[in-house]
């Protein structure tokens, strides 16, 4: 009896879905647009995070030693710095490697290449590149380094130049996060209301049928069931249609996004593919739950005996 009723509920749901095809298409279109907003929001957040973290990863404190500084002194300084709290990583760039990198960076500039060759000896000293675990910790690390009294061997500490930029990045990053949160909440609320009202309107259109079903002796669950299953169908079709369209669309969008974020090596397609089941699953479950709640709420008014 239960299975028979369940089978009938599913059959009625599919029947209603097809026989009210225009209403179904309108509802699905609204759901597709809602998922579009949500997905764009998710991807904008991801791209912003990627961009900010990529820029942050390029920030460091560089200690430029005098050209003739002995390697033991540099290594000793490195050991000392590594003991400072919040230091994540220290790279030791020897004078020879520093020269190679300098030449490589200016390989197109023959004037600089000639000048270096003419000098005969390596004008560059070794460099220590210090990375912190958090952006906020750079000033603290810098203060500790300065306390080591290494002015005699270190000719320049390259951080102050970045300080302003770093502060700006921090500020922009915070603003983007705040704006992203505001945007996420606003979009989510709008999406909730749009889908909720679309489902409600759909059920309002069927209110006479609900009344007839009651008069014929249908139980509340027998009436409610097809509407709930139908709302799940809307969610499934909405998600599927959106992702088919979106998958085709990102093929065109990806070069633009990659070009825009050329420096941070972000690939939209590989991100979407890598996280497909996570995003798709989240959206599907969210829209199904939303539709079920909307249907149940809208039906409740018409099901009172």
């Amino acid at each position: 009896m239960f299975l028979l009723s369940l089978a009938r509920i599913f059959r009625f749901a599919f029947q209603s879905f097809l026989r009210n095809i225009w209403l179904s298409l309108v509802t699905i279109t609204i759901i597709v647009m809602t998922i579009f907003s949500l997905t764009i929001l998710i991807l904008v957040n991801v791209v912003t995070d990627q961009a900010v973290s990529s820029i942050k990863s390029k920030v460091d404190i560089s200690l430029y030693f005098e050209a003739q500084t002995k390697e033991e002194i540099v290594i000793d300084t490195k050991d000392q710095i590594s003991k400072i709290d919040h230091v994540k990583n220290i790279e030791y760039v020897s004078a020879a490697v520093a020269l190679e990198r300098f030449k490589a960076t200016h390989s197109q500039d023959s004037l600089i290449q000639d000048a270096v060759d003419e000098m005969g000896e390596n004008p560059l000293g070794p460099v220590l590149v210090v990375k912190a675990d958090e952006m906020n910790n750079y000033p603290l690390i810098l203060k500790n380094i300065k306390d080591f009294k290494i002015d005699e061997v270190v000719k320049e500490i390259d951080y102050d130049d970045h300080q302003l930029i770093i502060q700006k990045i921090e500020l922009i990053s915070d603003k983007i996060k705040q704006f992203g949160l505001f945007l996420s909440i606003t979009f989510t609320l709008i999406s909730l209301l749009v889908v909720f009202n679309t489902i409600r309107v759909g059920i309002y259109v069927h209110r006479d049928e609900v009344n007839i079903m009651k008069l014929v002796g249908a139980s509340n669950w027998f009436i409610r069931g097809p509407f709930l299953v139908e709302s799940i169908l809307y969610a499934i079709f909405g998600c599927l249609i959106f992702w088919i369209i979106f998958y085709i669309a990102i093929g065109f969008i990806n070069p633009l996004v990659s070009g825009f974020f050329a420096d941070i090596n972000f690939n939209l397609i590989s991100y979407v593919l890598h996280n497909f089941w996570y995003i798709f699953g989240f959206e599907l479950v969210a829209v199904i739950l939303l539709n079920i709640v909307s249907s149940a709420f809208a039906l409740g008014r018409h099901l009172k005996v």
Partner: protein
Amino acid sequence: MIYFKNINKKYPPDTLALNDVNLHIKPGEFVSIVGQSGTGKTTLIKLLIAEEKPTKGKIIVGGWDITDIPGRHVPILRRQIGVVFQDYKLLPKKTVMENVAFALQVAGETNVKIEKIVPQVLKIVGLEEKGKRFPEQLSGGEQQRVSIARSLVHRPKILVADEPTGNLDSINTREIIDLLQKINELGTTILLVTHNREVVNALRKRVITLEAGAVISDQEKGKYIL
């Protein structure tokens, strides 16, 4: 079969739709309930199918006291009473066969039984050829016959018809009344709510007349007296 005992029905703020109504309808009777608009005829039907509850009094249907019937039992009651309405109340997106079958499906009948009974009932109402049509593809008289078929399909002991000919011409009216008489002859108790003087007078059956929510006349083989 049906008892209305001292029934009062009051709608807020102070409209008295039924006033101390006492009725006893025996099994197999054909009863016409007549009265002008707003005299409480439809309220009486609504009480019988538990769409409304009485303010006072007691209603018993087939030995079952439905006065304070819980919501979960209402569908069970409605599966035992066939109801036909003036506006047919057919499901517009279901075919004739599906509309009739729906009354059995809600009661959990098997597909085998449904496939056997529905064509039989459609034959009784003369629509065996139109089972795959949708309501909008039928005339008013045909839609009312579908409604009767649906109300009959679970073989109810009581069939309530609330102004079933209100939207029909005289030929279709005659056909519907003939059909109800045929159903009554097969043993079903019929409660016919109507305004139609000719129909009531031609029937020569029991007539209950309501006025201002009260029974003013109850005659065996009665006539439309208003």
